[in-house]
């Protein structure tokens, strides 16, 4: 069964929330503009700023210079940041995924080398997953590493690598054994230094002109043994076991919350007409519910579970909701949108243009639904 037992934040968690909330109120009062979720412009300075507050690499154990806090603590920080439109994308991948992956699969040396620097935002990661012909079918990667003295020689090409223009390392899924019967076998992940010889990063601009994504080319790049994540051949297992971390987060339903916030600020002192009330009420109900579901997953992560199907469900439903929310906001505005208008209009314009990407990032919703359906049917069979 797909379950989302509810839970409340503890007093300590509420106290953390208050701190982050106050910090972000302050940050905004300094004149920083709101940004839309993980589409925000990367801002390494901001990442360093909140690192100093202890809000990056929170769940990394103290022995690796982390804060030894919970997935829920991280959830609390992240949802406050997203709701307040903070520019969190620079440290995003390392904080959300790479740290977890290193903790679970990395060698001791890798942990000691990278984790402390994730905590201080002194090292940023990006993900080399998709390839030109692979899309959501990750296992069909063609990038390959061949054995050489003391390491691997990497050749191939990645696309949709967000942040490669400023990141230090790309966690790169590649084939380290020839393709056999199962395409899931013989894959590994390498931590590729993006400044190494043979690496070329080339920008892919989005339809709004923004530069999040890149193509990354590997041309006989030498990757030393110590940068192979875990054991050779474990790549597929590593990738799939982290999906619960990747998919369930508040970034999957809070992207346009800053626009709702601005609309709210315009409305709160006025009499709400019925239509505005109804639409806002429906949006509020959805936000409250997604938040409960996402928090539920964070609690289960803390309990050592990996609720990957639940995470896929939240991502599918949450990103569809984000699109509906943009449509509702447009309907409430009920006029042409001026992309050079005020903060509200400019953000809404950006949301209209980038909303189609919400249901594509991190596995298209069609693929996610396949994952969920398989689980539903398997569980049904088990019961029957």
């Amino acid at each position, binding site marked *: 069964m*797909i379950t989302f*037992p509810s839970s409340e934040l503890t007093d300590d968690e509420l106290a953390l929330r208050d701190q982050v909330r106050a910090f972000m109120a302050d940050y905004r009062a300094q004149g920083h503009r709101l940004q839309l979720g993980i589409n925000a412009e990367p801002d390494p300075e901001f990442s360093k700023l909140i690192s100093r507050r202890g809000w990056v690499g929170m769940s990394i154990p103290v022995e690796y210079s982390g804060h030894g806090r919970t997935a829920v603590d991280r959830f609390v920080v992240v949802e406050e940041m997203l709701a307040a439109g903070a520019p969190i994308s620079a440290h995003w991948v390392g904080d959300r995924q790479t740290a977890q992956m290193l903790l679970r699969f990395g060698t001791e040396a890798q942990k000691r080398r990278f984790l402390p620097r994730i905590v201080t935002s002194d090292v940023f990661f990006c993900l080399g997953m998709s390839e030109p012909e692979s899309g959501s079918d990750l296992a069909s990667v063609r990038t390959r590493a061949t054995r050489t003295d003391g390491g691997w020689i990497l050749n191939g090409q990645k696309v949709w690598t967000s942040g490669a223009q400023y990141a230090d390392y790309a966690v790169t899924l590649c084939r380290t054994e020839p393709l056999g019967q199962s395409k899931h076998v013989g894959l590994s992940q390498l931590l590729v230094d993006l400044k190494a010889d043979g690496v070329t990063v080339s920008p892919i601009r989005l339809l709004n002109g923004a530069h999040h994504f890149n193509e990354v080319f590997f041309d006989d790049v030498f990757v030393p043994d110590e940068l192979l994540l875990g054991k050779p051949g474990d790549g597929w297992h590593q990738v799939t076991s982290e999906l619960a971390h990747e998919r369930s987060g508040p970034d999957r339903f809070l992207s346009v919350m800053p626009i709702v916030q601005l609309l709210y600020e315009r409305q709160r002192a006025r009499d709400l007409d019925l239509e505005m*009330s109804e639409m806002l009420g429906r949006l509020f109900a959805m936000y409250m519910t997604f938040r409960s579901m996402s928090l539920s997953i964070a609690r289960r992560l803390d309990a050592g579970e990996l609720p990957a199907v639940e995470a896929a469900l939240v991502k599918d439903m949450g990103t569809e909701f984000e699109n509906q929310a943009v449509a509702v906001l447009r309907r409430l505005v009920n006029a042409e949108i001026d992309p050079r208008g005020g903060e509200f209009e400019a953000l809404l314009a950006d949301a209209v243009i980038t909303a189609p990407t919400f249901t594509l990032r991190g596995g298209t919703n069609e693929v996610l639904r*396949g994952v969920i359906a398989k689980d539903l049917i398997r569980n049904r069979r088990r019961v029957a």
Partner: protein
Amino acid sequence: MINFNDDLFEVASKMFERKQAAARYHAVEPWAQDLWDQLRTSGFTTLGRDATVADHCALAKAVGAYAVALPLVDTGLARWAAEHAGLSVADEEIVVCAGLALGDDLVGSVDASGGMSITGHARRVPWASRADVLIAPVRIGDRVRWARLRRADVDFNESVNLASEPRDDLTITAVVPTEVADEAPRVKDVRARGALLRAASGVGAMEFALNASLTYAEQRTQFGRPLSGFQAVQHHLVMMAEAVASVSSAVDAAVFSPPEQRLMRVAAAKVIFGEQSAVLTRLAHQVHGAIGATEEHPLHTRTRRLWSWQDEFGTATQWAVELATQLVFATSPGAWPVLTPPLTVLASRDVGETVPW
């Protein structure tokens, strides 16, 4: 999915299941006196303030899962309200709340000798025609009080909801109440609890519909393969699972809510229930094809209930408006802080429950 109180849900479910099997019914309907008697013996008909909202919701969910056509949920709501108000209800009496619908108006007047009589109307009272006793909020001057009336003293126009459950219009003319008490709990709190109970029943009915659809999609073949092998059908099933998960989560969040967030969470739960059960019912019928739309098939015993329960104790639209009204106010710190309030934000506003949950 989430049972609020797993034990209570399981016990009730077993009783309903036995009854269905014995009666060869797909749902427990029509009126099953033997089951009612059995429920009374087990104490399920007298759940009142001794039980938590989690208990009440667990029972409501079981009622929805098995489409039990008995006033178990509504009598539970009325008992809870009556006991808090201090009105007496005997164990064997079936009691329901009247006068909770928008526009209902019951007025009490006191004559020279100090005797009170009540006049007015109440629309679509659940199971009124099956009740022994009604409790209702009555306007007396500028105060509201709870009154206890004998059903026999009230005129009825019997009607039903889309699932043929009794929803009767009442006309009350100079009826002398058998008892009167102060307004505690508040009418809005009773209505909110009613809304939550409908959503909880809805979770049970939605889970049934999802499971029935999964089973059907696995068993039924078309163009040479099971329906569950078609991507379109798989996507239908996923959207149904999403509907169940979101409503279940929203109800759970309301049940276990901190006091000052109860009303807003109930509102959210009823909104989500209204929206998502509409999605689910449509897809459940689409997956089942024509067979699911026949009288013989159990699906409609749940979907017809869902279509009615969406609107009972307030429509999704009304609760959305209510939620916005609670959360948008001039002195508010902003959208996000009211959606995720620290204690101080809502405490000053009249949005909390005043009686034990």
